[in-house]
């Protein structure tokens, strides 16, 4: 997993609530057996017409947002399915940070597994950043994970909260499985006892 330290880039605004995982990556694209290559299908049904032509009004199709690295979105982003294809699509497109007032649980966890930082902020901070993001090419935002700050285009700074363990893994690009296998002895011990307590499992 790529480390996440400081991210500076264009923020794209999506002021829609309940953006669900079917919107982010429709199920027809779940047939891949790889993690990569889904960026072109991100928000597919909002981004292209039936013939495959780009819809010019969709935010990520606009020239100023085509290289967006950050998304500012309405409440409950990522609701619906557990499909990790949603963060894979975001990552492959180039987006490494999503900012909202709230996220659905499974999507939120999936982001951290892929080096994407989901940031939860109060409504007024999201409103401000949504406003900043609407400035197009001037919507350059810097996310500093170490210091937990977001710097807007006018120099204003917003602080954010993040789980300490998740932050540590992102900053250092740590692999979950490797970290867990360090605790293999604890798993062995548990398994042995559970096999005695609940042998029917």
């Amino acid at each position, binding site marked *: 997993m790529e480390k996440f330290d400081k991210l500076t880039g264009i923020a794209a605004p999506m002021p829609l609530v309940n953006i669900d995982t079917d919107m982010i990556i429709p199920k027809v694209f779940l047939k891949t*057996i790889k993690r990569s290559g889904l960026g072109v299908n991100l928000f597919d049904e909002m981004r292209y017409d039936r013939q495959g032509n780009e819809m010019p009004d969709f935010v990520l199709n606009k020239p100023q947002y085509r290289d967006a690295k950050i998304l500012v979105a309405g409440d409950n982003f990522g609701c619906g399915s557990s499909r*990790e294809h949603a963060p894979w699509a975001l990552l492959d497109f180039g987006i490494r940070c999503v900012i909202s007032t709230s996220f659905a649980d499974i999507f939120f966890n999936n982001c951290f597994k892929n080096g994407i930082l989901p940031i939860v902020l109060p409504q007024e901070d999201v409103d401000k950043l949504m406003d900043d993001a609407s400035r197009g090419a001037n919507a350059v935002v810097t996310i500093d994970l170490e210091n937990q700050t977001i710097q807007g285009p006018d120099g204003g700074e917003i602080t954010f909260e993040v789980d300490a363990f998740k932050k540590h893994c992102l900053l250092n690009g740590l692999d979950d499985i490797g970290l867990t296998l360090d605790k293999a002895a604890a*798993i062995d011990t548990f398994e042995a006892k559970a096999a005695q307590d609940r042998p029917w499992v």
Partner: protein
Amino acid sequence: MSPKTLYDKIWDAHVAHEADDGTCLLYIDRHLVHEVTSPQAFEGLRMAGRTVRAPDKTIAVPDHNVPTTPDRVNGIDNPESRIQVEALDKNAKDFGIHYYPVNDVRQGIVHIVGPEQGWTLPGMTVVCGDSHTATHGAFGALAHGIGTSEVEHVLATQTLIQKKSKNMKVEITGKLRPGVTAKDITLSVIGRTGTAGGTGYVIEYCGEAIRDLSMEGRMTVCNMAIEGGARAGLIAPDQTTYDYIKGRPHAPKGAQWEAALNWWKTLYSDADAHWDMEITIPGEDIAPVVTWGTSPEDVLPITGKVPSPEDFRGGKVEAAKRSLDYMGLIPGMPLTEIQIDTVFIGSCTNGRIEDLRAAAEILKGKKVKDGMRAMVVPGSGLVRAQAEEEGLADIFREAGFEWRMAGCSMCLAMNPDQLSEGERCASTSNRNFEGRQGYKGRTHLVSPGMAAAAAITGHLTDVREMM
């Protein structure tokens, strides 16, 4: 010892390791696997030179991509679908896990097969790379969906890195009225909480109306916990649960059955346990409901009317406008005037034998409306066989329904069963998002009886008028 909820008890019994910040390694008793969210996980294991830690606790079945027509015995036409299913065939064999391939009569939707085969038991931790894993909570198991990276983690370590959620109690008191079902309960709860109301919580459903439900009804309720944002939904086990489990292929037997039963009887929330949130809904107040919009929270009784954006506040105003436009609905229109051209009865929510019986009850001796496309997709090969034995398949066929093989089918457009643009479906599935059942397809979520009624009349219909 301080009072605990059922969730607390199951959690405490499964913590293999706890870090200083409260992050735990939760041991996983059952890992269910299907073909869509596992290929990258198995590939990850191979690339890292790792193996599956507990193949005996890992159960796989293909369900999302499989066609539901009999010609599937000859193979899957769609190349990408075929590749995914073949990848699961190979992975199951290479890693030595339990597997029900497409042509096995026990194959079906993973959340129907697990309980049917007795894999799901009270007090277990159960995960799967699928959000409707919450279904297994009906047995008093802690069950929830995970992403592919977590699937890989469970395969390699048989644990999940988790922080504990909060406890929510949802109590349904009293009794359901005739024509009202488990599906109406679960949709009504989401209508009340919204799709984010349960985020950060594990829900325990309780109350007389829940106790009165059969295991299949309880599975329907828990199945949609995730649509309300909750990581998992639980119902404490009781005699109904034990009677369902006993004798199933992987249920404990003999002395182990007695030992298991003794432990299962400790699986309930203590009377003075602490709840972070509580909701109560009188069972009598629940009507047969439908969804009108593009979110599972867009729930109304069938007697209602299409809402207007002005009925909502905040971000939902814009969302409602978008939904009404997508769904082609006019505010103020009675829901019973919404014309339906497609009916789908099936899915992990409502694809079990009792669901098929409920639909057959309405359809007996009747015919679907001219031009209606209607299909029944049983949730597993065993459900299919039982439905045929009971004569339900004959009722469906005579009414003009297509009678299919088991799979996820039209719940989501990953297999040939899809809506075309603008088609409008009364569906017993669990999501009505834009494009869920097919590009620009329109979905109204309902119970099996309500779907059957709509198939006959050609519009959303109050099933109570046909009983």
